[in-house]
């Protein structure tokens, strides 16, 4: 009988345990990024930029050159790398506290300059690493360790939608929001990542894939309940889809 490989762990990830909590979708997203880098032959030229958050150790996980950035600064670090190494494949991997709060200026201006980089944005509506504080993306009435009675608009405003916000930035090329709560959506998310890296290899400019993600530990739920909570609460506020596609040149100025 002939054997056929139907599944193997991706070479895009270093063979070691990830540092994420069981059931956290950071793990699924890592696997997808690793697979896309491997399948597209981009590991050899890759430079990933790890940010500050639960994914701070991602420089140990992605199987390519890596640089670890200060909190929020990954898009600036990626800019520095890509400008002096235009033939490399540069990506950042950032949480919502990192990208939507402390790193707001860096992400907006990287998009604004049309930096030819790919941003992987993991939105779990909370500061995971520091123990579950409120993020700019935390939903109204969502309880966190710094919004113990639930987020209230009068104190903390309404949750920020980053894909929508960046869609208003003329320099951005490709923006899509995806989810990884079931196999169908995981496949779709992988397609989105492939597209984002193609944008970069074709030198078309700034691409970002926003993942609706979970944090079972700080949400205080089982992994399964977290996925359901994300579908019922996060996705309605953060609708999935393509927010900008200027790859045909229609909006690229």
């Amino acid at each position, binding site marked *: 009988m002939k054997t056929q490989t139907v599944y193997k762990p991706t070479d895009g990830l270093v063979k070691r345990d990830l540092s994420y909590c069981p059931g956290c979708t950071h793990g699924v997203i890592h696997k997808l990024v690793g697979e896309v880098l491997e399948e597209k032959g981009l590991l050899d030229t890759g430079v990933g930029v790890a940010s500050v958050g639960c994914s701070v150790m991602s420089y140990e996980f992605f199987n390519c050159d890596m640089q670890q950035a200060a909190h929020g600064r990954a898009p600036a670090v990626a*800019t520095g790398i890509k400008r002096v190494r235009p033939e490399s494949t540069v990506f950042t991997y950032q949480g919502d506290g990192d990208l939507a709060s402390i790193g707001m200026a860096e992400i907006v201006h990287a998009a604004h300059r049309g930096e030819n980089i790919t941003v992987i944005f993991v939105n779990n509506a909370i500061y995971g690493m520091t123990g579950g504080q409120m993020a700019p993306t935390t939903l109204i009435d969502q309880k966190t360790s710094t919004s113990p009675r639930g987020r209230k608009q009068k104190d903390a405003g309404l949750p920020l939608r980053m894909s929508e916000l960046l869609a208003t930035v003329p320099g951005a090329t490709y923006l899509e929001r995806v989810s990884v709560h079931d196999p169908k959506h995981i496949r779709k998310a992988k397609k989105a990542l492939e597209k984002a890296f193609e944008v970069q290899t074709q030198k078309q400019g700034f691409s970002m894939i926003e993942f609706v993600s979970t944090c079972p530990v700080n949400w205080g739920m089982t992994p399964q309940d977290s996925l359901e909570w994300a579908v019922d609460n996060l996705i309605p506020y953060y609708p999935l889809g393509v927010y900008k596609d200027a790859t045909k040149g229609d909006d690229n100025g």
Partner: protein
Amino acid sequence: MAKVLMKGNEAMALAAIKGGCDAFFGYPITPQNEIPEYLSYHMEENNRIFVQAESEVAAINMVYGAAGSGARVLTSSSSPGIALKQEGISYIVGSELPCVIINVMRGGPGLGGIQPSQGDYNQITRGGGNGDYHLIAFAPETLQETVDVVKESFDLADYYRNPVMIAVDGLIGQMMEPVDMDKEIPQKDLPAKTWAATGESGKRGSRNKIVSLHLDPYDLEKHNLKLKEKYDKMVENEQRYEMISIEDAEVVIVAYGSMARIARSAVKALREEGVKVGIIRPITIWPFPEKAFENLPESVHTLLTLEMSLGQMHQDVKIVNQGRYNLAFYGRAGGVVPETDEIIEQVRKYVGGNK
């Protein structure tokens, strides 16, 4: 080579290009704007990278990225902008990356003013970022010296895998002086940057990581001790200073940068009258030139620190000379540049030795 008349900031920018600078990242601030303005034109012409960042915070992190991928990188700013760069500088040191930083100092604190100052001495030599770290910091006096150290700094940064800062005050940035841009400078034998995260793990056969995170305290302590060995080497090998008219001096001025220039005029006038006064001029402010104080002649009884700030370097003079000499200080702040006569008057207070 022939000398050309150049403005300080532009001369520093050209010196960076001649020093092999591959990329510049910066944000506008007075009184250093001629540096990015010059480079925005001339870097492209030399096939190099120029980016005007959205802030000093972003600029220094671009420096970190570009340096991590092996480039020779420059950023320039002035005092409040350097304050914003401290986080990035700490990361750059922690990750052992080279880069060159020009600081054209202005008066502070806060938004302060835009006139020349030396008020960043503590910020530069003590480090405004977190952790145990140091950078080599030059504080040159003339445009020629400034240009020479800018060129040399790229080699030094690569050699130590550590940032090097050139700290001048706004006077040097703004003045015009004849300068030989092609004067020979010392060069170092530098190994290839095999550690850089260049996006060539395929070609290299292994992957490189640029990181300042060490979660295990013993591991982080080991890393700190390794950095400390580097700092010790800098202290041993990189102290630079000039001794002026020291041989028979009873009063020795300690001054750097533009302040040293003014002190020079004062010393010249006083010497003509027969007053025995000299100068120790630190060229590096970190490492502080302790060696300059080791073998002063018997005739010295007073060290007079002069600053365009209020006694920041004077602390270092005191640390090095504890228990010896009369340690006096005079300084102006806020961008006020002292007159030569003012300095002469200060020196006279100590001539004779019994005060």
